[in-house]
């Protein structure tokens, strides 16, 4: 038998990007404590639909914590109070009966609200697009282990590649900066042999595209705390290093290094 929770939700409602939004209060009654946060919203929406009201739009897709679609501010924290957890993996047993939960969409000028809790995160795609290509061989299948990568390097690259692009780093940042996202995407490739061909052009292009949409880093560390994959802000330092190198190096002479 699971415990049942009665909660009060204060949720941001906004009809579309151009309409003004406001907080509305909804009761969430009889919520099983083994429901996920998104399932709780499903239950509330079913009630709203039955009453002929407009259901709450919220971003979600895989509900397995790997797609990066979900993500809202829950009581002032991106993805809620659980560390290293996406909104879909946050469970109602982490809340207490009678709690009031404030739910707000990500806020950044680059993330306009589409409706209610759903924001447009396509500027993150613009940063990825600016990254260009990697030196991936085509044609016949390459031999296994043809390119040797030290275990530590592979681990570091994999830690960066864990980024699911949810935008929590931007949402949590007081400057709406996307440094953690961009640096994770950069280090994922810049640390590997396959990523060296385009390393400095990639760093330059992705950072400069990022700065057309997002703010600058002031090293608070809120991004790492908010990240559902706990990506380290160390990558931001690596990105800063590679970016300044990309400006200083003469890439025609790269072979001399």
């Amino acid at each position: 038998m699971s415990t049942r929770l009665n909660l009060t939700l204060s949720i941001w409602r906004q009809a579309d990007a151009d309409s003004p939004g406001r907080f509305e209060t909804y009761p969430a009654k009889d919520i099983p404590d083994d429901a996920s946060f998104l399932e709780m919203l499903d239950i509330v929406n079913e009630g709203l639909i039955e009453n002929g009201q407009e259901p709450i739009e919220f971003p979600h897709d895989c509900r397995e914590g790997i797609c990066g679609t979900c993500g809202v501010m829950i009581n002032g924290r991106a993805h809620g109070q659980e560390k290293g957890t996406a909104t879909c993996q946050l469970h109602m047993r982490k809340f207490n009966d009678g709690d009031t939960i404030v739910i707000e969409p990500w806020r950044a000028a680059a993330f306009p609200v589409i409706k209610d809790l759903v924001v447009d995160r396509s500027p993150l795609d613009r940063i990825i697009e600016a990254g260009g290509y990697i030196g991936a061989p085509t044609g016949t299948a390459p031999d296994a282990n043809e390119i040797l990568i030290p275990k530590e390097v592979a681990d570091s690259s994999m830690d960066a590649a864990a980024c699911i692009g949810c935008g929590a780093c931007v949402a949590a940042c007081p400057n709406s900066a996307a440094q953690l996202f961009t640096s994770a995407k950069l280090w994922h490739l810049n640390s590997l042999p396959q990523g060296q061909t385009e390393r400095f052009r990639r760093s330059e292009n992705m950072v400069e595209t990022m700065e057309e949409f997002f703010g600058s880093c002031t090293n608070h560390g809120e991004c790492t705390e908010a990240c559902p994959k706990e990506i380290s802000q160390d990558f931001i330092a690596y990105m800063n290093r590679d970016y300044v190198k990309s400006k200083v190096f003469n890439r025609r002479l790269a072979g001399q290094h």
Partner: protein
Amino acid sequence: MAAPTAAGKVTGSKSADRPIRVAKKRDLPFPLNIYQTAVGKKWVMAVTGVILLGFVLFHMFGNIKLYLGVIEHDGERLYDIDIYAEGLRELLTPIFPRTWLLWLLRGGLIVAFGLHIHSAYTLTRMNAVVNRQYQSKRDWLAANFASRSMRVTGIIVGLYLLFHLADLTWGWIPGYDWERGQVQANVVNSMSNPVVAIIYIVANVLLAVHIFHGAYSMFQSLGINNPRYNSVRRNLATALAVIILVGNVSFPIAVLAGIIDYDPNLVSA
């Protein structure tokens, strides 16, 4: 079940596809192009921060001579801090004429201050454009008082610097008879006024708060990050802030307590 999320391109004036900030029109020649970007501006802020931090540390170290009182110098009895002040003007004097190196150093500091302030100003403006405030209360997890108040502490320390120059370098602050070269007398006469002493104490507490975040932050901005010594960075910043705090705050307190004093009868006429 909830309705599926809105899909497709968002139309309307608030499309996310258009850059929020106007892209730079053209690349300036190297190395100025580094300063055209936020990452480069942070780099400049960090480098100038190191320079200013070095100055603050050395300034504090030099001021400790206030405690040494009168010493024998070339057969004369003089306050040690006055000898030190004259020594700064005579740095490398056989090579440079008197005060030339001092002015060179001052010039470097003025440039560092200018760039530190300009980069902070432009980055603040940039962040104001791209940022949107939350309508509900934020729950800060990692950001501390120091990191969130850098702009405020920076402005106050900047204003305090002007006051400090007006007080002890230019002698513009009324209340005592300022005299060029009489460092011990000027410091004691100025800070024995409790109001002035409190200004010095408060400003130096804020300076230490500024350094607590700045000295840590500069490592990240410069890309100095290595798992072998990352744990040292926060401790180093804390140690620097504490050293500056204890050293600088001790001077006005010591003047008020009479530990640092000035007696014209002790020095050779």
